[in-house]
């Protein structure tokens, strides 16, 4: 099965090439068939390889397939090598499976768009880049996929380019992620300088030998890689691009900004986990960034009225959980949450897209309502997705993954009570804003008439995703509750086991607290938005609450802060320099030259007599000087 590996990324790339080169001449049916078909074929190949991998685990723990040598410069010869181990298998599975469902959904969602083939070409290129990122065996190839993902997100966020706002959002996403990418590139330079190679397996074996525990070079490298991850994964302080990135079509939000691309940072950190383990400080920073992000984004999600922005902030917040888990050393838990999150967040975005389309492109949740009976399929799938997001106990997959992270945030070696408390508070807020969104969209009276209902192409992917959002959690059950560890046993081949602190055996108390916080959040939102909406009005009369609301609504003022700190000074300098300050020096030189020429030009009288006089006088002066000296 090993030899099929190359087909996984190549199929979407072939789809991209066909659609990009000949897309204009193909009929819509063919465009959809090629676009969705290429990714679906990859999604079929992945389980075939995966079953082979699981039933006959290779002796080395991974499949690797070298296609060709990329370039050869002295000792530096990065190869185009695909590398599949348990960690990349999980990522490849999620990318192709969810990617295929989203492509199928898009075939229905984008049916009336005039740029049908361009859309599918970009989506295919995105899936290709992401697959390259997770299958790369060296960091250079990973970086190629990493940048490809950034490019595609730019192309797809600005897909409806006629509206300048969308172009602005696309540029914002591109530039902000570029900050992280630059740091990551420097990190790669450091790694190459230290180890003389960029091959990931070599780095991971050499790092513990060459660097001692807590070495400052390990911290620097880890922090540079973290900066790259923070940019792509929209974590503090580079999180501001993600809410604006919702300018793209809903399937784009589902594919890029929820399920796959933003988790590239999670992948990078878990792939390079040995370097992070060498530096406890860097790992602590990962955890703190995760905790701070999930907290901040949770409160922002609470105040948004655009349904997609609520989901965008919840994505930032959920990835914060993954970073928290990575930071405390709960590697498998982070990847588990990544997978579950990919299912339910893709589901929520797709369902939100269906709602938006059914309501004539209405994004405001306060203008929705009463959709419970009108769009039953969407309602049920959205409900399942929300339950998973809010981590509704026992029945939803999100509960199993998030509960694990919360437990490890305290109990794992790198955990502490404060991180756990912020995580718990985040879970509470998640429950509140999820319930708020559900109530406002599906209950209450209808405020907008629905247009056309979503077709089969759109509802079937929703149902499949809903199934996984409910049941995918059962492959990994808590220690005191079934103790079923299919997922973490698989990842144990790659990632180290989570080490617990001594004397931590009371997981049940933590689960009950997590359960109470979720139920409490749901109840609070139920009271405020369903039972007694007048309470909200009363709260809004207070000036403090209103200011806080606006503060949270603006994403804790980060946009404003960056605007004042970075954008405005640069614009100011650009304005100052509009007339080229440096050029003034050279203009001065020409000015002096012109002046001198003007003042000396009278000597060019044209009169031959004067010239001869000049010659004679000059000769006399030189001769007399000769005589006198």
């Amino acid at each position, binding site marked *: 099965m090993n030899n099929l590996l190359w087909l996984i990324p190549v199929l979407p790339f072939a789809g991209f090439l066909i659609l990009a080169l000949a897309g204009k001449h193909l009929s819509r049916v063919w465009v959809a068939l090629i676009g969705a078909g290429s990714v679906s074929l990859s999604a079929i190949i992945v389980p075939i390889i995966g079953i082979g991998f699981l039933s006959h685990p290779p002796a080395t723990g991974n499949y690797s397939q070298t296609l060709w040598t990329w370039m050869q410069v002295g000792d530096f010869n990065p190869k185009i090598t695909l590398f599949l181990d348990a960690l990349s298998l999980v990522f490849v599975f999620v990318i192709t499976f969810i990617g295929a469902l989203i492509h199928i959904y898009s075939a229905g969602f984008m049916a009336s768009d005039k740029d049908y083939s361009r859309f599918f070409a970009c989506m295919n290129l995105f899936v290709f880049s992401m697959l390259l990122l997770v299958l790369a065996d060296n960091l250079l190839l990973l970086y190629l996929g990493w940048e490809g993902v950034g490019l595609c997100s730019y192309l797809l966020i600005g897909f409806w380019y006629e509206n300048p706002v969308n172009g602005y959002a696309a540029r914002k996403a591109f530039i902000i992620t570029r900050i992280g990418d630059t740091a990551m590139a420097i990190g790669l330079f450091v790694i190459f300088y230290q180890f003389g190679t960029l091959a990931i397996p070599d780095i991971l074996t050499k790092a513990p030998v060459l660097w001692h525990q807590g070495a400052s070079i390990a911290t620097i490298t880890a922090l540079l890689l973290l900066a790259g991850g923070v940019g792509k994964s929209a974590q503090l302080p580079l999180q501001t691009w993600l809410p604006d990135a919702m300018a793209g079509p809903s399937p784009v939000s589902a594919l890029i900004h929820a399920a796959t691309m933003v988790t590239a940072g999670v992948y990078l950190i878990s792939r390079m986990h040995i370097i992070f383990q060498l530096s406890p400080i860097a790992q602590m920073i990962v955890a703190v960034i995760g905790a701070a992000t999930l907290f901040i984004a949770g409160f922002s999600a609470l105040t948004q009225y655009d349904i997609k922005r609520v989901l965008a902030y919840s994505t930032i917040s959920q990835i914060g959980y993954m970073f928290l888990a990575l930071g405390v050393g709960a590697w498998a838990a982070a990847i588990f949450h990544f997978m579950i999150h990919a299912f339910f967040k893709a589901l929520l975005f797709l369902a939100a897209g269906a709602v938006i389309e059914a309501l004539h492109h209405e994004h405001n949740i306060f203008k929705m309502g009463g959709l419970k009976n009108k769009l039953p399929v969407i309602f049920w799938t959205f409900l399942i997705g929300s339950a998973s997001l809010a981590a509704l106990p026992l029945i939803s997959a999100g509960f199993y993954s998030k509960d694990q992270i919360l437990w490890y945030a305290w109990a794992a070696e790198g955990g502490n009570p404060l991180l756990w408390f912020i995580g718990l508070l985040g879970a509470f807020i998640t429950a509140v804003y999820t319930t708020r969104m559900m109530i406002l969209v599906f209950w209450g009276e209808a405020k907008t008439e629905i247009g056309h209902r979503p077709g089969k192409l759109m509802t079937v992917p929703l149902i499949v995703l809903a199934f996984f959002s409910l049941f995918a959690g059962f492959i990994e059950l808590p220690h005191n509750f079934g103790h079923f560890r299919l997922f973490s046993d698989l990842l144990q081949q790659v990632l180290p086991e989570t080490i617990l602190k001594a004397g931590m055996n009371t997981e049940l108390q933590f689960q009950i607290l997590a359960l109470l916080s979720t139920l409490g959040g749901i109840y609070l939102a139920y009271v405020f938005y369903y039972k007694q909406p007048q309470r909200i009005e009363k709260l809004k009369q207070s000036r403090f609450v209103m200011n806080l609301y606006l503060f949270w609504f603006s994403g804790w003022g980060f946009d404003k802060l960056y605007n004042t700190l970075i954008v405005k000074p640069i614009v100011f300098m650009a304005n100052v320099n509009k007339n080229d300050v440096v050029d003034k020096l050279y203009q001065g030189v020409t000015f002096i030259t012109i002046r001198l020429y003007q003042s000396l030009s009278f000597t*060019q*009288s*044209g*009169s*031959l*007599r004067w010239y*001869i006089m000049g010659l*004679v006088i000059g000769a006399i002066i030189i001769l007399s000087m000769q005589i006198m000296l």
Partner: protein
Amino acid sequence: MKSSIEIVMLLAGLLFVLGIAGVIIRKNIIFMLLSVEVMLNASGLAFVAAGSRWAQPDGQVMFIFILAMAAAEVSIGLALILQIYHQHKSLDIDKLKEMKG
């Protein structure tokens, strides 16, 4: 011998100054050209005198050079003067100031 070279040099200097004065004072270009010739001959005289004083052939060699150069100069100069006269119908140097500025 010693006194005669001083006299010849004095004569050459006199001729040279006469030539310069002619170039400066004269209005007609032909006379200016003549004056330049006088200056050339003055320098030639100085070379010949110096050559005979130190009994070296170099002085006479230089005079032959100057003679050849003077011939070339006169032919080109006269051709230019002819052209100037064709175009401006005048040989007055004070009226020919087109190169001003």
